[in-house]
């Protein structure tokens, strides 16, 4: 499932980033890698998705819906 479909407040593992290079590069650069653990903080029908990357520090990250849909995750 993608990040938008995932339930909030559950520990998620990044399985893949299904996107073309430039976009994927940006996500990797800012700290989202395959096998990282995330927690989705908000759940809304519109607007960006808010996550916390548990693997590389506690910073919150806002991801536009177009970005979030490309992050494939699974429940840990």
């Amino acid at each position, binding site marked *: 499932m993608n990040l938008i479909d995932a339930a909030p407040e559950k520990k998620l593992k990044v399985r893949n980033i299904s996107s073309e290079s430039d976009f994927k590069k940006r996500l*990797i650069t800012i700290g989202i890698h395959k096998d990282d653990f995330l927690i989705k903080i908000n759940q809304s029908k519109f607007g960006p998705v808010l996550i916390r990357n548990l693997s590389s520090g506690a910073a919150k990250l806002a991801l536009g819906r177009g*970005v979030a849909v490309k992050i494939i995750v699974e429940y840990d």
Partner: protein
Amino acid sequence: MIKRIVLVGQPNVGKSTLFNTISDSRATTANFPGTTNEILRKKFNIFGTDFDLVDLPGSYSLNPSDVSESITIKYLISEKIDLIINVIDSSQLARGLELTVELAELGLPMLICLNLIDECAKQGIRIDEEKLSEYFGCPVVSTSALFGKGIKKLVDTAYDLLQISSPALKILNYSYNTEKYVTDLEKKLANVTFETNGNKRFFAIKAIENPNLLSPEILNKLSEEKKIIQEEIQKIHRTDSYEVLSSERHHLAMKICEKISVVGKSRRQPGIDKFDTFLLKPPTSYFFLGLFFVIYFLFIFYVGNLLSSLADAPLNYLSDTILTRIENQSFWWHTANGALMGLKGLVGIVLPYFLPLVFLTSLLEETGYLSRVAFLTDGLFHLVGLHGKSVVSFILGFGCSIPALYSTRMLENKRDRLIAGILIPFIPCSARIAVIFALAAAFTGPIWAAIVFIYVIIIIGIIGKILSRILSNPTGLILEIPNLRLPSPKASIRKTYYKLAEFFKDTTLFLMLGSITLGWIEYLNVSAYINMIFSPIIKYVLGLPEQLGSTLVYGFLRKELILVMITQAMGKSSIAELPLSANQIIVFVIFVTLYFPCFTTFIVVMREFKLKTAVLSALLSITIATVSAFLFKILI
């Protein structure tokens, strides 16, 4: 030769605060990622020796993905650097170390600065500096730049390091296969002498993950092997080499972080996190956002009005005192009058609105709320083909287009920067807001001022939508939301002062020259010719008196001058006496609000983008202004 120390780190780790503390300078800092989007330099002295301190724009990695990051990597490769101080947010150590691994690969002398150590302690994290130092083979110093903690030790350590000729950094090895690829390429570079910074290992790694950073000479040397390795990586890992190398660094950084840090009980106040939830989760988030915008604009409007009225009397007194001493209507009288008008515009109109805007924005940046505004307005900005990160540029645009245009550097991709760069000049800046309020509100009531604003916003939306259709490949929002911090009014006042100083430094020359030129235009009495040239549009299309043609030319040089020039052009002593109907005022205000803001903005668009963009943007705004004013003329 003066030795050079360069601060390098990821965005929002406190580099600029550190820069200010070390050099006793006042660089702009904020709790918003990517505040420093240009290179800052300052000389400072340790034990009687001068050093150059350089603050580079924040960069997540040495594989650039926006303009600011490109500036950083270009500087690191091509400039003379004696020591790198790698600034890390110690509360986010694992992510910070990914850049440290890359910097170690670059091979320049380095010192690691674990900044924000107080925040790290609050989160219950303890870091073993010694162990970290062993991993990279370079000294590590913990600091809290905001409170000046650890700065002396950092500066002393930097001084000591600069006395050693070339302190060796340790090489951190990747996994077996990747390491083999790197060493194979390194061997190929055995006989190459590098004219830039960076060693064989650094360029071998970049050849695999980001060949764009290599010089044509190195690229030619490695082209075949690089291709084979990239294909092999693709075959084995089923992903591109960039991701593989990046994952290697990520795992190295996480491994080091695990070995050197211990997480204990957090001392962070739970109340702050709860409040943050209110700010980020609907419906309370949108209530706060609405409140924010209302307070923000009311504050700017009322404080701006107050300051503007306070500045009037002394400026008029100064103007009268000087002009009465010069022969009336002489060349020098017009020159002085032009310069004084420039001063009046700057101090009496731009400054009063710019001051509260910059102060309030600085205060909000300090708290970290501006990132939350970007998050909450993302959906709205999608309507104009941008994303929430542009909100800062748009808010700044209400003060002045120039700092707003500079701030677009924090947008990652060219397309977003271009769209923002074209839209920003349409946002009514403080000078145009003054014109709208003074004319529309005075003649037709505040409702028309509101209509003008709404119309401009609709126009911005339509242009944004069209541009986003033409320029495809939109990027989504990827924005770090920093922790909430209490604002420091002292820091905000300081920041406001230096931002204003920077703004005046950039624009005063153009403004004064423009104003003096206007004085000469008046002296030479060429307004009649200018009016004649513009009369087809002014008189026949917009239905306005021909005399207003020269006012619009003055407006191009300085928008706020319109208020002064319109009365002069019509031969009246105050705005209230203008022989214009309410309809004509509205048509005029619409035109003034939408046509290209000013000469200085034109120069900045040209500098930040290209001459072609500046010309196209100017033509677009003039066309839209003419069509809009004509529509208002026939519809109202």
